[in-house]
Each structure stands twice: as structure tokens, then as C-alpha cells.
């Protein structure tokens, strides 16, 4: 130690040290340059979001927009209802990926009718695979209760998996902010959009239910299950949100199950006495038209459901289902 103290630093050591010091200085300088922020953080800003979801609807075919089949067996009536609109082959092309969004909102057993009927969902899955030759069918929903419990207790998880569908449970990463063009409430709101980016066709399946707040819960309200976040806040303007949902989601096909209708205490029901057997199955290329027809099953008129008029004004569809020439028939 004393020797080098007396000798001083060698040229080589000095150059080596200077080089290292220079490199560190340069690194610090470069980091400062790249990270430099002259303006400081902005005020809170939320990402604007997507303006619209993909359009999954199919070309209009005169007289083949809405069908109503009366019968007691859901499997039979749904087959007939879809066939009357041109068969599943019109909606599902070979090799396509289909997303079915049934009502799986509650961890409620199927007998209480608060969720879509599992056999009905399974049959639609089977149709997509067998006759539609779909590549894959995915079932999804963002339920109100615990998602796994909802899919299990409603019976839809098991029935759909057995028919070959894949169950997709919601995860945080599947939601993106959407600002609906022409919408007032769906502004920077998380919507279940990521799975929609990878599919070709979208089918909704909903039972006909009374709803204490909105009057009815049918195919339009069914899309509530694509909203994320604290969506309960929209109950303050329930009719507008349902209308905006119908404006936002352009599905391929909706199936409205009026076989066992929840006439009272909707949307959760809870007793067999809340249900009434009406044996009606509706298939429609447009959710607004389906709901406009379906409200009669709850002894309601179109005027009784303000969200129908709002959806019509918003361009989501027509409430004058007669003009669409519905095909009405019965089985058995």
C-alpha cells in the first residue's frame, strides 16, 4: 500500500478509471435525456377507448328476421326457430369461431329460471358444431355472483362443456374501455371486448324475465353481462343503458326463451311460483325486435318498456316486429 501511495497512480490505471467514470457519466446523461419530462404529469386522464365493437350481424333477408315457435320441448323449438330463419348454416359458416353469451348471471339452479336453460345452450352449441361445422364454440358471461359458482350451479358449465364448448371465465385482462359513438353512459367504460376480437359470430341466449327495475330482462338486457367495472351504477338510468347495450352489440343471432317465463320477482325469482309455462321460443337477427315481441309474454306492451323506444331512436333496431314479417308456428 505504501509503495503505490508513494509512486502515485499508473497511466494504465488512470486511463482505465477515467474510462469507467466517463462511461458512468455518459450513462447518467443518456438516462436523463431519454427520461426527461419538461411538462410534468398531466391531470387525470382516462384512455378514450374503442368506439365500437365488431359487427357480427349477417345480411338482412326479407321475412327471415324473426321466428316464433310454440312448443314445450326447448330442443325441438329452438331447432325449428333457427331453421325457419334459414337454418344454422345461414349464421355459422364452416371453420368459424362462435361466441355464445347466455344469461349466467346468478348462482341459481336451472329450475328457478333465473339463468338460461342449460339444455337449450347445449343444443345451440351442438348445432354450431354438427351442422354449422364451427371450429370452436366459446361460452362466456361476466356474472353478478361468483363466476365459477354461476357456471356450475346454473348447469350451463357442465352442459356446454359436454357439448364440446369451451367455457371462458372473465379475467381483468379481457376488458377494454369503450366509448360508444352516440352513447351517453358507455363512455370510457370497461367492456368484455378482448374475446370478441378473436371470434367470427356472436349469439345471445336469454330467458324472458320480469325485472323490478327495468320492467323486463330479455335479449337486450342480456348484454349487460359484457359490461365490466362497477356497472351497478347504471341502474340509475337503466333504460338508457339497456338501449346503449343494444346499440353497442350487433349480434348474429339472439334466442329468447319464453318456455318458462319468470312473471314476478325478477330477475332473481327464487320460487317455482314465479314461473309460468308459456312454451314460446323466439329466434331473431335483431335483439330489439325479439324483445318487442317477447314483452307480450310478460303481459307488457312496447310502450311499457321505455328502453325499447330509446333503442329504436338510437338506431339499434325496430320495435315494429310486425313489419319484419315474423314467422309464427307451433310444434305438436
Amino acid at each position: 500500500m505504501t509503495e503505490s501511495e508513494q509512486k502515485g497512480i499508473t497511466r494504465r490505471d488512470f486511463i482505465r478509471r477515467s474510462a469507467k467514470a466517463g462511461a458512468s457519466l455518459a450513462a447518467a446523461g443518456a438516462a436523463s435525456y431519454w427520461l426527461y419530462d419538461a411538462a410534468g404529469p398531466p391531470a387525470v386522464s382516462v384512455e378514450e377507448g374503442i368506439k365500437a365493437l365488431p359487427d357480427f350481424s349477417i345480411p338482412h333477408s326479407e321475412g327471415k328476421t324473426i321466428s316464433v315457435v310454440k312448443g314445450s320441448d326447448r330442443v325441438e323449438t329452438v331447432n325449428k326457430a333457427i331453421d325457419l330463419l334459414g337454418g344454422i348454416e345461414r349464421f355459422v359458416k364452416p371453420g368459424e369461431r362462435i361466441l355464445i353469451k347466455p344469461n349466467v348471471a346468478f348462482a341459481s339452479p336451472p329450475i328457478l329460471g333465473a339463468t338460461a336453460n342449460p339444455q337449450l345452450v347445449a343444443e345451440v352449441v351442438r348445432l354450431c358444431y354438427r351442422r354449422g361445422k364451427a371450429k370452436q364454440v366459446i361460452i362466456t358471461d361476466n356474472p353478478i355472483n361468483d363466476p365459477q359458482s354461476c357456471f356450475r350451479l346454473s348447469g350451463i358449465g357442465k352442459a356446454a362443456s359436454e357439448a364440446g364448448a369451451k367455457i371462458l371465465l372473465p379475467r381483468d385482462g379481457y376488458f377494454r374501455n369503450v366509448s360508444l359513438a352516440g352513447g351517453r353512459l358507455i363512455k370510457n367504460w370497461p367492456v368484455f371486448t378482448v374475446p370478441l376480437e378473436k371470434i367470427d359470430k356472436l349469439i345471445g341466449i336469454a330467458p324472458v324475465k320480469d325485472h323490478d327495475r327495468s320492467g323486463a330482462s330479455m335479449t337486450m338486457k342480456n348484454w349487460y353481462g359484457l359490461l365490466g367495472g362497477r356497472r351497478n351504477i347504471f341502474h340509475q338510468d337503466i333504460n338508457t343503458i339497456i338501449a346503449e347495450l343494444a346499440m353497442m352489440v350487433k349480434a348474429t343471432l339472439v334466442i329468447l326463451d319464453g318456455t318458462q317465463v319468470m312473471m314476478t320477482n325478477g330477475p332473481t325469482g327464487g320460487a317455482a311460483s314465479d314461473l309460468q309455462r308459456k312454451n314460446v321460443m323466439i329466434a331473431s337477427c335483431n335483439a330489439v325486435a325479439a324483445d318487442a315481441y317477447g314483452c307480450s309474454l310478460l303481459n307488457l306492451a312496447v310502450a311499457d318498456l321505455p328502453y325499447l323506444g330509446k333503442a329504436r331512436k338510437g338506431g339499434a333496431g325496430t320495435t315494429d316486429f310486425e313489419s319484419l314479417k315474423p314467422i309464427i308456428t307451433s310444434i305438436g
Partner: protein
Amino acid sequence: MRIVTVRRISQIFFFVLFLWFCLVTTIGGEWWRLRGWPVNLFLQLDPLVAIGTALTTHSLYWPLLWALPVVALTIILGRFFCSWVCPFGSVHHFVGFLAYRKKNLAEKVKANRYRKGQCIKYFILIFFLILAALPLAKGPGLQIGLLDPISLMSRSVNLVLLPVIDNLTGTISVSARFYEGAWLILTIFFAAVFLNLLIPRFYCRFICPLGALFGIIGRFAIWRIGKKQIGCPDCKMCERACQGACAPSAKIRISECVLCFNCLQDCANETISYQTRPSLAGEITNPDITRRGFMLSAISGVFALPAIRLGNLLGSNYYYRLIRPPGALPEEEFLQRCIKCGQCMRICPTNVIQPGGLQPGFESLWTPVLNMRIGSSGCQLNCTACGYICPTSAIRPISLSEKLGLDDFAQAGPIKMGTAFVDRSRCLPWAMDKPCIVCQENCPVSPKAIYTRTSFETVRDGILTVKKAVGGVVETIEDTLVPDQFSTGDYYCLLKNGERRKIETNTENTIVVSSADSFERIPVEGEKIEIQIRLQRPYVDIHRCIGCGVCEHECPVSGRRAIRVSAEGETRSRHKSITPKGQYL
């Protein structure tokens, strides 16, 4: 095969098995979910749980019979559990090994020397056993769960390690799981594990009450470690990796020996053996506790429990936000059985069961409490998982019929966890003139426990003067209305004569009601009309409410919720009831 190899295989086997049981503790039928795996096995094998609950309840809950073979084997063989089975012990063993593997023989021997402080774990055990045996008016208290190694490890893995790994990788559960106060559980776990860097098997030697119990039970074991011949050169190789710090080179302390057999393996002289004869160098069977130490821990125990209970939290000062899972025993009995293992919190499908903090009292620490704001939906109606998983029946394994008051239990009615109360000062339709009723919508019982009464309130600045009215279109003098603000379907126009019609839409200065259902008497110029909002206001039917908390969970007033569950009315506590029994509904 050498005995230490067998021991290592046993440690790895039970450690992996323990982690597997923790992982599969989720509801479902797949092979990697609950489906019949005996996930409570380690807790059931734990004699401290069996003896603790036997002292507090004067009964042995049948699944805890598994402790009997463990006790029997310990009596015969010694503290095998600590080295061969205990997953927490395996963690300490491994970390201690890692910490000391590069050190020389002298340092290792020094680390493994017997220390007087090893008597502390016996004092801890005595303290807990006194608490469990104390015949207080409201019964004894079970606090072994705080330091029992199986409970501690179960809590740490279930409530901290698994959720953290899951939140980082997103692989274990579908949605992120949350547990309040997990930081404290993690701190204690890491503290215990990192203390092995100072002294190997720190927890086992100084703190573990289960180890202390095994030490007492196994001190007269038929087989024990000892010197089988004279002529030991005192090389101290036997203490190189001695786990129990039991001094095998000298007079071996049987109650400290954890049967790791490292001494047997390391002995260069074939002197150490596992034998029926006592060690030729002598053995000490009793734990190193003095009478004074025993008295001090006993007196502490005798005073501690009543002191903890001086807050009268088991009486009139009960913490009313303490909601226990359905099937939980009355609080005094609950606190005699809960071992704070966290199994119920792990299996709860909605993540609503949380480890309790200190607010409901010290005894509630890490016991299950419901926090309706966490998780996916309050207490799910059709679920009884927590009762089925509870290893000590602090939460009884109730059937769905008992929970919901069906069939045989129709007379008794459903189990209530508490009652929901609407906070009218925060509820949207009660205080803010905004329609909502999400609570009523989600109430899962039938008939619903939340019902509504409809009322109409004139909105702020809602009294307008008519300029001209034709059919259903009323033009007003005031022209500062926001166009369409009354078109949501909830607004009505009230006339002087009491007629009220739904407003379809409005402009800056006109109100339009439905043309199909217009006014019977058209209002005239100068007349006043009132814009009203139709509000469905929620009320709780306290006879039907079961306190499941789905309403509190769904309330859009997301901070301090406008409907909150409170412990009044819970079935398990008569003294918290607010209505007399026998009242007509």
C-alpha cells in the same frame, strides 16, 4: 438405504403433500380441486389441536382422532413428527441447512449447541394450555392457532403465498384473491423462516408449542438416541447437523431430540445409535423448565384471558360489524374451537371470508369474518363449503336445508348471519333522488328480504309554469331545461289536480308526455306543473333477511355502503336479537 435418506424422502413427501392439499382446497370436481382429497389431514394429525380442543370443549371431535396414532408413535419412538412429517419444520430444516452449509465444523457445532432459551417453548405451551383449561364464566379460550406450526403454515400458504404467486402469474385461481392483513401473516412467516439464518431450526427449538408437547409426551420413548459404547472421542461430529440442539455428544436431552438421525449418520466412531437402553453418557428426559418458570407462565395464562376479555366484547360491547360464516357456533364456543388455520378463507368461493383483525377483540385475530366489500358476491346462498372444511367444527358442517331453513328445518327457519340495514342518508333513492334498487334485485332469498315502496319526489327546481299546453306537449315559461334530461323513463309530470303522467322527453322549454296516455285535463296558462322522479325505495324485512351481504356487495355507493350487514339478528346469538321470538311475521 441410510436412515437420513429415508428421513429426507419423508420430509419431501409430506412437504409436497401439504402444498398439494393447500392447492386443491378449492371447490370443484376436477382432480386438481377438492373432490375428496383429505385436505385437513395435517391439522387432524396435530395433537396440539386435539388436546387444545379437548381441553376447551371436553370432547374430541371425531376427525381429530388422527392425533391418537401420532401421540402413540411419539410415546414409543420420540419426536419423529418434527423431523419426518412437519412441513413447517422441513422449511426450517432446509433454510438452516442452506445458511450453515458453507461454515466450518466449529461454527456448526456452536450453532447447534443446547441453549437455555429452548425452555421458552414449554412456557408458551403451558400458557396456551392454561388458557384452554381456564374455567371462566364465558368459557376458556383457544389461542394455540397463533403459534401452532401447522396452523401457521396453513395460514401463510393459503392466505399469502398462494395468492401472491397467483397475482403474479394468474395461474391458480380465475380472479385475484384478496386477504386483509396478510402483511402481518407474511411478516411472521418470514421472520420465523429467516431466524434460521441466525440459529438453525430457531422456531422448532425456541417457540413451537407442538414441539414442546411432543417433547413432553415423548420423553420416555422406548427407543431413543444415545451412545451405545464407551470410548467416545468427543469429536462433536454428532452435533455438526443436530437439528434438535439436544447435545448428543454429552448427556442427551431426550425431549429436545427430533430424531433427525444426523448424529447417527455423522458419528465417526459408530458410537451413536437409536436404542432401547439409555445413553451410556446419560440422558435428561425432562424439559429444562424450572418450577418458577412453570408458575410464571401459568400465572400469565390465568391472568391473560380474563384481561383480554375485559372489553366485554363477548357481552354487550360486541363488535357489530363482526359477521361470522353461516354455521359458526355461538361466539364463546367458536373461540374454543377456531384454530385460525385459514381453510375456510381458502375454500370460500366468493372470497368473502377474511382473516379477522384486532378490532373485534384480540381473540378474533385471524378468525373468519365476512367482509362483504371483498370478493365476488357476499355469502353465496347455495354454498356451505366453509362448514365442511372446518377441521374443528368451529363452523359446523351444516346442510343446505339447515342453512336455508328448508325441509326438516322449515320450522327453525334459515340461519341468519346478521341483518342488513339501509343507510337512508347514503342510499341513492332515499337521499339523492336517484333510482337504483340493485340491492333488492340481488337479494337471493325468496320472498326477497328487501322490498320497495314507490314514491314520487318533486325534483330540485322542478316546479314549472305553463305557457301553453296542447295534448301531451306542455310548453313552459322557464326555458333552461336540459334537453332529454327527463327522458330516462323515471320522470313524471304532476298537475295541480293530481294527475300524473310519465314524461317521454323534453326540450329546453317543453315537457312531452306519452300521446297514448295524455292528460285528462289539459293544464292552462299560468298553472304550475311539477317534474317528479319515481323512486323505488328499499326497505329490509328483518324477518326474512339472512345477512348474506349480497346487497352490501352490490350497492353502487361503493365506499361506505348504503346498505350494510350488522350482527343484530344473527341466529347463533340470542343476545343480539332485536325482535322477540314468537312474533308473527
